[in-house]
């Protein structure tokens, strides 16, 4: 805003300089005014206009410049008195130039600046003359009133600018506050739906360790997914599919499944069969091994994929598996063989069980 005001002042001063030049030339040619005085005055006016225009920020601030400005303005106002114009011929040639000084002072000191500088400039112009008192008094009043109005106008513009900026800041603060509180509300809603509910359930079931463990595991997985959502594995790959399966069994069977994957590849029918067989093997371990922890390890080696499902449970004798316990035979061994893969079951009573699944990826 201050910059705009300064530009207005500089602009007005140039206009004033052109104005004083035109009337000055008329005064020399038509009114028989002293060319020396007029040209000197024009030089001062133009010189000062250029100085102000080049660096308005400095000129319209420092005391020294302000008083120089007042001197220049006063001189251009009083100069017509020394031009030795014949009585009654023409008028004063100052034009509007002295008023630019009043604007500068109004800019620097508001209403008092405008009024005081207006008074100084116009009364200095009164001194040497014994001309028509009424005309000069009128012009003095116009200067003083003009200075006051300019000061008042500048103040108003500045104040409205400050108010506008305050309103903007307020809106900005409100906006960021609203965004923050929306985020907080979203976070609170999520935590309420998930973590708080789980904690309430855990308190209710604190006497059932298996249940508590399962609740905590499920919550942990859910929270991790929420926090690091984007970074997690996608479900349509070997590792992603295994993670999904293991999570599902953890939840359903209330055991822990530790999954380690080395290498990953996209799904194809063979890999899907491998994942389904893994699901069956882990479910089996969860149901029959009598442990609370199963380990799953997968490794991709070229086109070959291996999965190991291991528990430290009761184990069994693979040779004597009941006919009706078809899970391992059908869903694991059979499924793997149908897809050109292989399943090996190692188990002994008391020695835990390990199911080794291997298959190669479909030909590209």
């Amino acid at each position, binding site marked *: 805003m201050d910059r705009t005001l300064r530009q207005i002042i500089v602009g007005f001063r140039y206009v004033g300089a052109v104005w004083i030049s035109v009337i000055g030339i008329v005064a020399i040619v038509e009114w028989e005014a002293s060319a020396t005085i007029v040209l000197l005055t024009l030089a001062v006016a133009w010189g000062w206009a250029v100085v102000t225009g080049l660096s308005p920020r400095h000129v319209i601030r420092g005391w020294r410049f302000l008083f120089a400005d007042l001197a220049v303005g006063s001189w251009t106002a009083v100069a017509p008195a020394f031009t030795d114009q014949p009585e009654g011929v023409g008028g004063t040639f100052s034009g509007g130039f002295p008023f630019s000084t009043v604007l500068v002072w109004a800019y620097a000191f508001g209403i008092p600046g405008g009024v005081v500088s207006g008074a100084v400039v116009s009364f200095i112009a009164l001194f040497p003359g014994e001309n028509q008192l009424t005309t000069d008094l009128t012009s003095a009043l116009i200067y003083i009133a003009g200075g006051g109005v300019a000061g008042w106008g500048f103040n108003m513009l500045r104040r409205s600018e400050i108010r506008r900026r305050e309103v903007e800041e307020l809106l900005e603060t409100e906006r960021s506050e609203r965004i923050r509180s929306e985020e907080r509300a979203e976070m609170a809603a999520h935590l309420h739906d998930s973590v708080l509910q789980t904690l309430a359930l855990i308190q209710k079931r604190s006497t059932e360790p298996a249940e508590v463990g399962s609740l905590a595991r499920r919550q942990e997985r859910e929270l991790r997914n929420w926090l*690091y959502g984007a*970074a997690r*594995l*996608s479900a349509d*790959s070997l*590792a992603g599919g295994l993670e999904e399966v293991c999570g599902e069994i953890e939840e359903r069977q209330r055991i822990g499944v*530790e999954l*380690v*994957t*080395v*290498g*990953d590849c996209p799904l194809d029918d063979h890999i899907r069969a491998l994942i389904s067989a893994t699901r069956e093997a882990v479910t089996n371990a969860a149901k029959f091994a009598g442990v609370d922890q199963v*380990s799953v*390890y997968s*490794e991709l080696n070229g086109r070959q994929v291996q999965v*190991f499902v*291991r528990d430290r449970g009761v184990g069994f004798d693979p040779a004597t598996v009941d006919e009706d316990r078809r899970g391992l035979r059908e869903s694991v061994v059979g499924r793997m063989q149908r897809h050109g893969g292989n399943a090996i079951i190692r188990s002994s009573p008391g020695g835990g069980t*390990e199911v080794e699944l291997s298959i190669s990826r479909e030909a590209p």
Partner: protein
Amino acid sequence: MSEPKPKVFLVDDHDLFRAGVRSEIGDAVDIIGDADEVDAAIELIEERRPDVVLLDVHMPGGGGRAVLEAIHDKHPGIQFLALSVSDAPEDVVDIVHGGARGYVTKSIHRDDLIDAIHRVAGGDAVFSPKLAGFVLDAFSALEPAEVDQELASLTAREGEVLRHIARGYTYKEVAERLFISAKTVETHVSSVLRKLQLTNRHELTRWATERKLI
């Protein structure tokens, strides 16, 4: 217990967790102090000289890695066991690369944690199945041409040992299955750890970020 209790120092910015660990293992090991921030931890560890520092990976002010870097070279006798809720590959591998002798998650059972502390105090490495998997993955991904050939690859035996650990076997079970002594298993694991620590940190970071984007 015949062997002396190892002196343990806890570094974790969660008060609740420190209190929990104290009450869980306080009778099995000798907890000689704890700290909840990096600078205090460095000062107190230098003063009290524990055998093992249980180190949280994520902490304000540089995290566990900052504590490791300040202490590790000056006091090689102090061993670090990293403990974290994170199982992000970059965290796990970075802290082990920085000199930790092992990495376990905070949900580890009490007995397993005590066992891990004893192992680390004895200079051995503690590899959880997850860490073993990460290391296997990292070594298969590192470009052999960019690092020393010898360092960049695991021997067949080391790979086999790691694979068993990743499958959920304990060191003792691995030894039985591979017909070697438990001490030999330890030797293999320690050698893997050394190789990991000698690889380029930059390479590992690249591996970890690429892995995450799968």
